[in-house]
Structure formats: C-alpha cells, structure tokens
C-alpha cells in the first residue's frame, strides 16, 4: 500500500473547498445578471474594476499598508535586536511578552484602540488636561494606520527575532576576532543575516494589512474605505455579487503574485515558516 494514498482525503477536500470555490469566483467575475434572471458572460465587470475609482482605493490600501509596514519595521527591528543582544539573557522569556497580544482576538485588540481613542476615552481626557478639546483621533487615516500597526507589530517582531536568534554566536566572535567593533559586527554580520527574517516580517504584515476590512471599518468609519471594505460593501450593501467577485479576483491575483515574488527573497529551507 503506497503511503501517498493517505493524502487522498485531503486532496478531495482541497478540490471541493479550495479549487472549486476559486473557480466559482472566476465564474461570477466573468458574468453578470441577465435581464431575464439568468446569467450572461461579460467582461464589463472586469473593466469596471480597473476604473480609477476602484484603482484609487486599491492604491490607497496599498499605500496605507505600506506605511503601517514601515512603522512596524522601524519599531520592531530594534526590539528584536535588543532582545538578542548579549545584555539580554532573558530574551527568550521576554519575546513571549511581545508575542502575547497575538493570542488575543484581533477584534478585541482593535476594540481596545477604539476604547482608548474615543472622545470619552482616556487619551482624550489626558489631552484635555492640556486644553485640547475633542481631538479627532478616530475615524481617520491616522486611526487606521495606528490600528494596523497595533495589530500587526508582533507579526513583525517574531520573524525578525527568530532569524536573529539563529545567528551562530561563533560568527560574531569571528568578526570581533578579525577586528570588528559592535557597529561593524552589526553592519556586516548581524544585519545581513537578519534580512530573511525582515522579509518574512514584511510579508506577514503587508499582505494582511492591504486586504484588511474590519480594522478599517471600525477605526476608519464609512468614510475611509479600504479595498476590503469595498468588496464587503459590494456583497452586503450593493448586492452586486458579480462585481464583488470581480474585485475579489483582482485582489487575489495581486496578492498571490506578490506572495510568490516575496517567497523568492525568503530564507527557504523552512518551507512554511513554522519550524
């Protein structure tokens, strides 16, 4: 009995629940409701999807995700660096603290931000002490970016930390032996060897950030839609499932292509980030 037969249940499952649905999306994207109640093949929706309005929103989503990713990188890289420096023997314990928020439901984390930023909330009260009344901290781009950073920061810290921790200490000693002071050790050994982790982190933040919808809906309100919001809107508000599917298709293709490009830059023995 060939052992590869064990994979059959999975293959069947995958066919039904992954491949077929993707096919259905393509089907819906390429069709539209016909006046007689049936469906007609058309590329109109695809063309509409590339309309400046929607491309603009896509662009903005990418832009916001990009900013959030950069902020996460700026904040998170030093954290990983400090945790793996020689002063910190308890780094492996402390990393848990930085990673713990990942385990809290992300909606709760987002809600926590609403809580704080709301006009009746703590930050507003604090600013009130300085005479700043009614600071509009919510329902704008700032809040969305803050929400993205807050939610995804641990996802940036963890892979960078993992990559740094794996650096063979012997390499650091060799560099010092050959004349490298701390700055040179960082620049020529630590930093280059941490880059696969950085790419991992960027992937794990940027991708979800572009496609988010809950964060932007809760923190941005209906005025600051990101691409994900628009898609959801098409399905549940505008009830234009065909167009919704089209937009989803666009997003999916964009994301899959970028993912595959990113994977090339990653340190790939890990085949999946998990061990």
């Amino acid at each position, binding site marked *: 009995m060939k052992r590869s037969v064990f994979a059959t249940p999975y293959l069947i*499952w995958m066919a039904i629940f992954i491949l*077929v649905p993707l096919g259905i999306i393509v089907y819906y994207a390429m069709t539209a409701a016909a006046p007689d109640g049936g469906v007609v093949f058309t590329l109109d929706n695809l063309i509409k999807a590339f309309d400046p309005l929607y491309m603009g929103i896509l662009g903005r989503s990418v832009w916001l995700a990009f900013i959030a990713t950069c902020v996460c990188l700026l904040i998170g890289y030093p954290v990983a660096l400090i945790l793996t420096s020689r002063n910190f023997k308890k780094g492996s314990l402390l990393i848990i603290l930085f990673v713990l928020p990942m385990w809290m439901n992300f909606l709760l984390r987002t809600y*926590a931000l609403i809580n704080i930023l709301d006009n009746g909330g703590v930050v507003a009260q604090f600013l009130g002490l300085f005479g700043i009344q009614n600071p509009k901290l919510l329902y704008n781009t700032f809040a969305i970016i803050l929400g993205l950073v807050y939610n995804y920061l641990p996802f940036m810290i963890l892979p960078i930390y993992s990559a740094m921790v794996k650096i063979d200490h012997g390499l650091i000693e060799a560099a010092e032996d050959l004349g490298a002071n701390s700055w040179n050790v960082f620049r020529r050994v630590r930093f280059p060897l941490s880059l696969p982790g950085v790419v991992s982190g960027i992937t794990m933040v940027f991708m979800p950030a572009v496609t988010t919808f809950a964060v932007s809906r809760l923190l941005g309100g209906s005025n600051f839609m990101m691409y994900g919001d628009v898609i959801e809107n098409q399905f549940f508000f505008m009830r234009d499932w065909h167009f919704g599917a089209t937009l989803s298709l666009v997003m999916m293709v964009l994301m899959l292509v970028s993912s595959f490009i990113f994977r090339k830059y990653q340190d790939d023995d890990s085949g999946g980030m998990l061990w």
Partner: protein
Amino acid sequence: MVKVKSLFQKGYLGLVLLFLYAPIATLIIFSFNAGKTMGKWSGFSLKWYEQLFQDPSLMSALSTTLTIAVLSALIATVIGTLAAIGIHSMRKRTRSLVETATYIPMLNPDIVTGISLMLLFLFLRVSLGYTTLLLAHITFNIPYVIFSVLPKLRQMPQNLYEAALDLGCKPTRAMWKIIVPQIMPGIVTGAIFALTLSIDDFVVSYFTTQGVSNLSIAIYAMARRGISPKINALSAIIFVSIVTLLLIVNIRANRVQNGKEKKA
C-alpha cells in the same frame, strides 16, 4: 558606558511594551468601572461581568467559538497529518505540485477565502450556519497542520520505519508506534495553530455563517454600535485566561527541564 546603553535598551523595550499593553490594560481596568464611559472612573463595580454572563447572544457566541475551534482543529489535524504523511511519500513532482497548491489558501487574503466559500455554499444551495462555519474553519486550518507536520517528517531519520519493519513490525503498527511519536511535536504545533487561528478568525467566519455567530462576529457587531463595557469584561477574562495558560505551559516546561537535569 555599557550601563547607559543598557538603560536605553530597557527603556525602549518598556516603551514598546507600554504601547502594546496600554490599550488592553485600559480595557481591563475600565471593565470594573461602574460608569459607562471609558474616560472617567465612577467607582468599582462588577456589573458588566454580570451582564456579560447574562447576555445569551454573547454566551452562545462564546460556546460557538470554542466548539468550532476544538472540532475544526481536531478534524483538520487528522486530515492534515494523514495528508502530510501521504505528501511525504509522493514523488518529487507531484509533491511539489501539491505543496504549492496547499500554499495557496494560506497566501490568499482571508476575504477571498471567505467569499469563495460563501459562493460555494450558495451554489450548492447549502444554507449558511454552524455547519458551513465548521467546514470553512477546517478548510483554512488544514494547510497549517500540513506545514507543521511535514518538516518533522523530513527531519525524521529515514530508516526508522524500515528498522521497525526489519524487526518484524507490520506497516500499520509501525506507522502508529514509530512515525507518529516522531512527528508528534509537529502534530501538536499544528493542532495548536489550528485552534488559535480558529478562535481568532473573523473575516472567513463573517462570510460563511448566517445567524450563528462566533465571538469575533459578535464583538464586531457590538463594536460597530460603539463602546460597550461588556466587551471590556470579556477582554479581561480572555486576557487572564491566556496569561494563565502561558504560565501553566511555562511551569510545566520548566518542570520537565528540571526533571531532565536531575536525572542527568
């Protein structure tokens, strides 16, 4: 000089930790607030906790989340582990193909996964509810299980299985007694991953269920309407549970370490 640098480093870490935990801390503190607003302290009260437990929709959402998580993790782990074993034995080309295909749901934005499943269910004229939610969760969990178990299969010394057969073990028994224990860490990691993903999921659940809510959906609905201190109470409970869980895991891990050291 070293001392100053060390101080800066600790300070920076402290700041980042503050950033990460201040919102959560505020949530928890104000869950005990007698008043409804999140800015002014009106006195200590446990009423929001009471209201939380008396809220039928929240409680049912909680139970839904937990049961779905456990069930989907279980089923996904079984299917995924079998799949990993199967994939490991495939020829290189088929294996590459299947692995790439398995990556796709992981790389796909969850909106697309959610929508595609929703369309599937509608196409099959299955009404959205608990079952569809479960099916959806199993679906996105399986790839993570596979990619947790596969590396362990790769790291396993090749001839263990053969050694067992050589010593007279039947193939199924060898599978059970030799292979599974070796890959158990991968299975466990995969299962935990699945549990976590399931508990945390929002977007896929949002699209694949109607009427039946899980926790994330319930919170979303409440949050859209504005602040509600019941959520604070819920957050506090969840946070404490997570910390407790972590402490237990750490203490057990330490005990195992010390036990090993004592024996050595």
